[in-house]
């Protein structure tokens, strides 16, 4: 009887030690769900969701504090992905947040006064320039978040939609007449 008890206690102590050790050794840093959600988000860092960037929105989604339809750059496909990931129902975009065509910011360099306000606003450091020097956008790194538009004191930044050319052209969904079957 006592031997059995001792064996059970021994096993319990041993397993507890193993569990305790692995809890320290294999501790997961951060919330893995946040990482997964962040991977789905488009990383425009535009703040249209009401959070200061994609990661904070992902954190809020992981805690269940935000709706999944707050990310216009992600498009409806993004909502579907979030719905799948979080096991939620699809919700369409609200009234005020229709997804826009993809675009990049463009600085009218003749108007720019070199105030650096847009550089400070850019979440991905896609603007090059210095005080009292002309600024310009690195188009390949611009996410089209529009955060540089508001701070510009001379309104020299505009958003140019990305035009289709031979490098980014895509095959269209095949559309052809379907014969009526009577």
């Amino acid at each position: 009887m006592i031997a059995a008890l001792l064996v059970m206690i021994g096993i319990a102590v041993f397993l507890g030690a193993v569990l305790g050790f692995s809890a320290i050794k294999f501790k997961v840093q951060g919330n893995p769900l946040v990482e997964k959600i962040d991977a789905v988000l488009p990383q425009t860092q535009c703040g249209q969701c009401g959070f200061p960037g994609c990661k904070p929105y992902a954190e809020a989604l992981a805690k269940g504090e935000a709706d999944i339809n707050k990310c216009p750059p992600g498009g409806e496909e993004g909502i579907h992905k979030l719905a799948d990931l979080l096991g939620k129902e699809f919700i369409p975009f609200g009234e005020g947040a229709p997804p826009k065509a993809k675009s990049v910011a463009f600085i009218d360099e003749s108007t720019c006064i070199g105030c650096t306000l847009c550089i400070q606003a850019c979440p991905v450091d896609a603007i090059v320039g210095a005080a009292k020097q002309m600024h310009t956008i690195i188009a390949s790194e611009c996410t089209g978040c529009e955060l540089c538009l508001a701070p510009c004191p001379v309104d020299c930044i505009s958003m140019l939609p990305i035009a289709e050319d031979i490098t980014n052209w895509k095959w269209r969904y095949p559309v052809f007449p379907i014969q009526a079957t009577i």
Partner: protein
Amino acid sequence: MKAAFKFHGGVHPPTHKTESTRTPIAQTALPSKLVIPLHQHVGARAKPVVQVGEHVLKGQMIGKPEGRLSNAVHASTSGTVSAIDLQLVAHHSGQPDLCVTIVPDGRDEWIAHTGVDYKQTAHTELRHLLRQAGVVGLGGAVFPSDLKAYSNKHKIKTMVLNGAECEPYITCDDMLMRERPADILRGAEVLRELLYAEEILIGIEDNKPEAIAAMRQAVIDGKHEHMTVVAVPTVYPSGGAKQLMRILTGIEVAAGVRSTEKGLQCFNVATAYSAWRAIAHGEPLLSRIVTVTGNVAHAQNFEVLLGTPVDELMAQAGSRPDTDKHIMGGPMMGVQLPSATVGITKAANCIIASSPALFPPPKPALPCIRCTRCAEVCPAELQPQDLYWFAKANNFGKAQEFHLFDCIECGACTYVCPSNIPLVNYYRYAKSEIWAREQEAQAAELARERHEFRQLRIEREKQEKAEKLAQKEKAAAVAKAASDAVQMPTATPLGPNADPDDAMQLRIDAALARAKEQASAAHPKNTETLTPQQHAEIAEADARRAKAHEMALSDAEQKSE
């Protein structure tokens, strides 16, 4: 020798090859202008190295390769560069691309060029020559040949020379093999040398007996060893690289595996020919054999300068008025040209003049009945009906699971579909959507990295600023304590826990006290020689000023109350 193996599926469309093989390859007249696209190969677009207005010689490089996967572009004749701008090109999109337009001067004057003896030249040098000569795969894929003629990881046993030319209407390789077999085989020897390949197998479809005979004779005449011409059965798409390798060697190159890993490499016969011209004669790729056929008076093969506008080429074959469009390539995989003014490129093996009588508009598509005829003919052994289903439903993940990217877009499935569904268009749509998503994901990854780095930098800058400020304050406090100790021993020393506001107030009080002291120490000068009357006036004025000051003070007090 007959082929011993076969691939899965395949179709037998009417070949229409005899129309254009009745007469030998003809030279074209010099066109009025050449529109030479700078992107005629797989990889990065060549960078223009000429200026508008510059006079160029035949064979002069006008676009230099940019990056590893790229290739050179040359002036096909001597003349003047009249424009470097966006022009329509032979592309499915119908979008313009950067082209160099040259107006020929009619002299056709060559730039200085000499060949090398490939046996006496280092391999890296030979590959460099191929790259600088703009040699790319002329079977239609236009992959840079210098990159294909290199294998350091895997031993190449067999080099396949592709003369199958399986697509209907096209006969350019057939005519080249009939007329210039010796140079093709010499080029093949250069490529074999570069790959250290043991044997060369030349696959030619058995509907080209003249080409097979000519090539066999050339093998004997040229005393080429370990080189065999194999007649392969006529079935579309036997000219696909993987399909031909399978027919000739029985080796199947699986999905995601490169043929070099299996000891195989494949070149088109015209590529071997232009490799020989480039190495032995120093001639860059300036022209190619183009089959002009379809709705024309006399279908024929022409040796065409790259950049020749299609309409000028068609005129030489006798274009007919009811031609409504032109197809570059064959009817199975070809590109419908956005305009008849586009220039001939390295990929243009054939131009078919199309008319409604020749190619009637496709019949309306019916729903898929899942008859699986497409699966029976698919040379890649895919399930096209499933791929269609997933592509149609935008279920791209599933389409990829079903090996969408193994599809070679040969069009055999579309050809046999009893419901007339444009299956290949669905696969192309799905592929380009998947590529676009991948690019978006990469851009997002870049944006995330940059954003995170920015956050880190801002945090770091904040910390550095705080540290600097703390150090400065500390230094100032030390200096002040030292100066206070010397000048004003009576001043209250600041304790280490003193409130910053109190410290500021103390400093202000001290400054006021110093100012007062200075004011009382200052005595009015020039007053010694004044009369008593003047002294009395000064005293009076001082009294008035003091009174006014007092009144102002009491006023302020009243107001503040």
